[in-house]
């Protein structure tokens, strides 16, 4: 007997279906709502648009479009999740995406650099900008909101300067356009899907086996099978539907891949633990010997670099970089995605998957309203209302936790 499972209040170890349900219900009632509201919201949104559009929403061509639309902002949102985990904000991710795309376009089209090098140039620009933000915030103890608000204005100016008098640069490089223009069909799509399912199921299985071998409660085997089966079903359905049109988009695979890697970083590595600790209680983290400022700088570097990568994906899809690249609702949607997906604005709570779930919600609403030819006035109002709802759920859940 090497667990503390003797406590009658402890239901978590119960290896039955009832135990799982009871644990989950207790978590929700104690304010840990997790991903439940967003999944319910997604079902509602899909049902509404599916019916209202007369089924057009669920056609393969529209779902492929939806995947392509999601990739860029979803990638940016992954970085935003980490910034929010720290309890900070980065308002420059929108303009940074445009700036990186602009630098890539200039390097490729005007300086004649090969596509991969031009993309690398854009990413390095993101890295440097993030390092600048992070160091300015930590060195001078200025709130990230103010530093990145200044950046929001300044980097927009730099983008205009980079693009020069032409204003628009069209992209023809096959590597760059291939990022959003490549699709996996047939066997390749299935190999990638299978790889994902094996990863999800395999990690759950290995984790349980290690815990049981160490004499800890491993949780129900049922949960491992359920996780594997659900992810297999979702992946198979997605591949079947997407294959009826152009196929599984490379940019979607890249987004999901990024989410999987960053989820591992957040939950399983020392760095991820440090990020959560700094977001939860920075002073406690400092006293525990965590290099708080270095963690902050690293996260701002990540956010800007992912923003740059997202901007490059967006440029690849639009085949051009313009003066308005990365402006408009890119910033709002990236932050909204992270928050709607269940990342707390107050720091210390969230997962990398929030970015994917959140962008799925945001882009589904946007896509659905486009199908129904809504006015921009209505689109903006509804998107704002959804964001407000998500933040309110977070605030209420937070209050629920504090009462316990």
């Amino acid at each position: 007997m090497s667990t503390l499972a003797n406590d009658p209040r402890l239901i978590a170890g119960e290896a039955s279906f009832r135990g799982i349900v009871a644990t989950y219900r207790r978590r929700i009632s104690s304010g840990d709502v997790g991903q439940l509201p967003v999944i319910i919201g997604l079902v509602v949104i899909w049902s509404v648009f599916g019916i209202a559009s007369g089924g057009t929403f669920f056609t393969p061509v529209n779902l492929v479009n939806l995947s392509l639309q999601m990739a860029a902002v979803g990638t940016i949102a992954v970085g935003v999740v980490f910034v929010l985990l720290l309890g900070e904000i980065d308002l420059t991710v929108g303009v940074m995406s445009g700036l990186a795309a602009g630098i890539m376009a200039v390097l490729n089209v005007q300086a004649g650099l090969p596509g991969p090098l031009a993309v690398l140039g854009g990413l390095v620009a993101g890295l440097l900008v993030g390092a600048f933000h992070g160091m300015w915030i930590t060195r001078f103890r200025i709130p990230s909101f103010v530093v990145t608000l200044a950046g929001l204005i300044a980097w927009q100016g730099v983008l205009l300067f980079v693009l020069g008098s032409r204003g628009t640069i069209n992209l023809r490089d096959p590597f760059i356009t291939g990022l959003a223009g490549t699709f996996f069909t047939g066997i390749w799509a299935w190999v990638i899907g299978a790889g994902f399912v094996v990863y999800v199921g395999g990690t759950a299985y290995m984790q349980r086996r290690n815990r049981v071998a160490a004499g800890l409660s491993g949780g129900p085997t049922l949960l491992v099978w359920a996780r594997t089966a659900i992810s297999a079903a979702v992946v198979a359905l997605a591949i079947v539907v997407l294959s009826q049109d152009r196929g599984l988009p490379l940019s979607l695979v890249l987004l999901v891949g990024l989410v999987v890697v960053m989820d591992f970083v957040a939950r399983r590595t020392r760095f991820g633990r440090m990020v959560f600790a700094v977001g939860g209680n920075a002073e406690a983290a400092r006293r525990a010997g965590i290099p708080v400022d270095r963690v902050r700088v690293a996260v701002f570097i990540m956010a800007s670099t992912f923003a740059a990568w997202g901007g490059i994906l967006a440029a690849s899809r639009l085949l051009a970089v313009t003066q308005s690249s990365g402006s408009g609702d890119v910033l709002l949607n990236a932050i909204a995605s992270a928050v709607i997906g269940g990342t707390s604005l107050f720091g210390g709570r969230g997962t990398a998957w929030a970015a994917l779930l959140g962008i799925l919600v945001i882009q589904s609403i946007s896509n659905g309203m486009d199908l129904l030819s809504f006015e921009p006035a209505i689109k903006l109002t509804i998107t704002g209302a959804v964001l407000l709802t998500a933040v309110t759920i977070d605030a209420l859940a937070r209050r629920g936790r504090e009462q316990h």
Partner: protein
Amino acid sequence: MAVSTRVPLLELSGVSKRFGAVQALTEVRFDVFAGEVVALVGDNGAGKSTLIKVISGIHPADAGQFRFEGRDVAIHGPQDSASLGIATVYQDLALCDNLDVVANLYLGREVGGRGPLGRMNETSMEQRSIDVLRRLSVKIPSVRTPVESLSGGQRQSVAVARSVLWKNKVVLLDEPTAALGVAQTHEVLELVKRLRDEGHGVVLISHNLVDVFEVADRITVLRLGRYVGTYSAATVGREQLVALMTGAVPGEAANGEMPAGALPPAPPAWRADSTGPSAGIPGEVGR
């Protein structure tokens, strides 16, 4: 064993600390032996918390000698203090509410993996967490519970458990029972006794003299940043202690050391009971 031959785990003398215009500590001395609880008492502004911060290296002293297990040492920062084996449990807990018990116990010292992107060994951390909590009889529903959903006493117990997970020799507790209920206070004081029985030197800061008398072997009194005296908890009375804390009567250190204008040293009858660190320590005899 004769008390005089034992070497204190930690011994300070002549410690002074100034914050701008405020002389927070003046020529303070202090010592703690292995396997004993020394309470540090004094009114607000007496310098208790400052002394703790000096020992833990958060605010290094301006002057003073430090000896650890008889060796002369220097404490210039938190790393120095930690590497000697001195752990501090702060008043404001210093736990991350959003992380679970295991993550908090191992915060900053995670097991497994190389570098910041190495994979942590969660099973090993969880096993050791369960072991240490059981050894200290800390009762919590699950080590995977986020700290925010624990009671105040459980949270304090987790903070204390963290300090002994790392083979520390001296544990500094800053107001561990402030803001705790009766049962929870009892829980934490029992934990303090277990630390002592395991051979740790425990330094306890508390405003609550009931708590102090329940667990302390010796009591060191500070007043206005100065050392007043150290007394055996078995022999000093509660009223005496209050009088010493408020300055109504001078302490043993007063002989010739009192600032000008203070009361003349006129030892009252109970003065004979008091003992200094250089004299015999009744609380220690026979243990």
